[in-house]
């Protein structure tokens, strides 16, 4: 009993010293065919990934498809996970790739992502900070490029840090910051008339 306690303590200390140890252990169990480990992996990450997929896709059906595809790919490639990054980062990298590829293929998403300047509704200038402003802003976010939108959504909408975004997208932290700056600049430009009218 005492030795079991020490073993548990040693395991906990090892995980504290190397946070990715738990990830590697979980992955090893999955690779060995342990279904409860697969489920544990899924449970640990599905909420955050689904949220991001929904933010990116804007539709439940697509968000579900992208999330499912992410985990299917992840489970099929688990042997390739070496623990160089956190498991969550590795999964998110797959997820963002799945979402971007998927969105390219989905026609109805292209409609949603039509350039903001092409939208005739922008000529309308509603008064006050209303739902209309939000609607226009959301359209503008959807119209951001493939490089800018994931960074904006992850940082400003979902609250990821630049370090996390850099890890997921495989870009330097500085690039993540620069893309966020560009995204905000485009959104400011797109909404300038509306906001100016509101402030005035």
């Amino acid at each position: 009993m005492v030795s079991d306690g020490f073993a548990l303590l040693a395991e906990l200390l090892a995980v504290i010293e190397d946070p990715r140890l738990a990830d590697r252990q979980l992955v090893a169990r999955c690779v060995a065919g342990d279904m409860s480990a697969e489920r544990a992996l899924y449970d640990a990450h599905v909420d955050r990934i689904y949220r991001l997929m929904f933010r990116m896709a804007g539709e439940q059906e697509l968000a579900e498809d992208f999330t499912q595809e992410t985990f299917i790919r992840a489970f099929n490639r688990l042997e390739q996970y070496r623990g160089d990054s956190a498991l969550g980062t590795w999964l998110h990298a797959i997820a963002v790739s799945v979402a971007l590829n998927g969105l390219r293929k989905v026609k109805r998403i292209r409609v949603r992502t039509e350039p903001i300047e092409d939208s005739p509704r922008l000529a309308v200038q509603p008064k006050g900070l209303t739902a209309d402003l939000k609607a226009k802003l959301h359209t503008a976010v959807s119209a951001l490029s493939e490089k800018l939108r994931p960074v904006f959504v992850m940082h400003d909408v979902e609250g990821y840090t630049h370090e996390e975004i850099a890890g997921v997208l495989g870009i330097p932290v500085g690039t993540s910051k620069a893309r966020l700056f560009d995204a905000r600049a485009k959104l400011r430009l797109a909404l300038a008339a509306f906001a100016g009218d509101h402030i005035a």
Partner: protein
Amino acid sequence: MNDDEMDELLIQSTRDYNEPGAVPREAMWARIQSERHGHRGSGGGSPNRTRWPWIAGALAAGLVLAAGIAIGRRLERTGVSNPSRVAVTPAVAPRDTGAKQPPDSMVKELRGETRNTQQRVAQLVKEPSSASGAATPESDNLAYRLVMLRHIAGSEAMITAFRESARRGEVDAQIADWSRELLGTTRMLEASPVTQDPVMKRLLEDLDLVIVQIAQYTTTGKHNPDDLDLIEQSIKKRGVMTKLRSTLPVRTLPAGT
């Protein structure tokens, strides 16, 4: 309005950008499992291999009989169900008979049967034999009916095992996995030609509901009498066990055959 103020406005206004609702965990998990087992099932073998010709159907019929009898016999030996009246009696033996939970090895074996069935369904869905010209649509129908029978046998075994463990106040993690596997197969069958038969369609819908409830309950790992009561009500209200047994002819065989 300067850039900082504009940024603040942007951030405030985008907090509900594509706001997600509740995460459909179980539904996605079931589909992930179905897809993965489907790929595994179709991964091996020669590409020119004929799938589900009539001869394979006959062999499968034998397998169904063997699987059904094996499941029934094994549960009978452990006292989970009554051997002589299995087709008409309630699924769960009375409390005072001292019914036992199937041992882990048996549950594993039964889950193995479930996975085999899931692979066969996935294979059929992905590559119907009639599509390749290897066989006729009739042979596909037979193949679907056979896997449906296997699925019914597995579902009955899982629900019976679940009720027994629940009666003892236990929540068996193996049943959590087992039920999710069965849910995946149920969903695949719900999207298959099996549902052209209205009886089978209703049975699958009933099974879907009950298995989802069991999967959700067992995944929590906590004993909850209220949730158990709801599951039991669903099983009884929809007559799930009766329907399962009346659809499974092999279980009506007298003991010893």
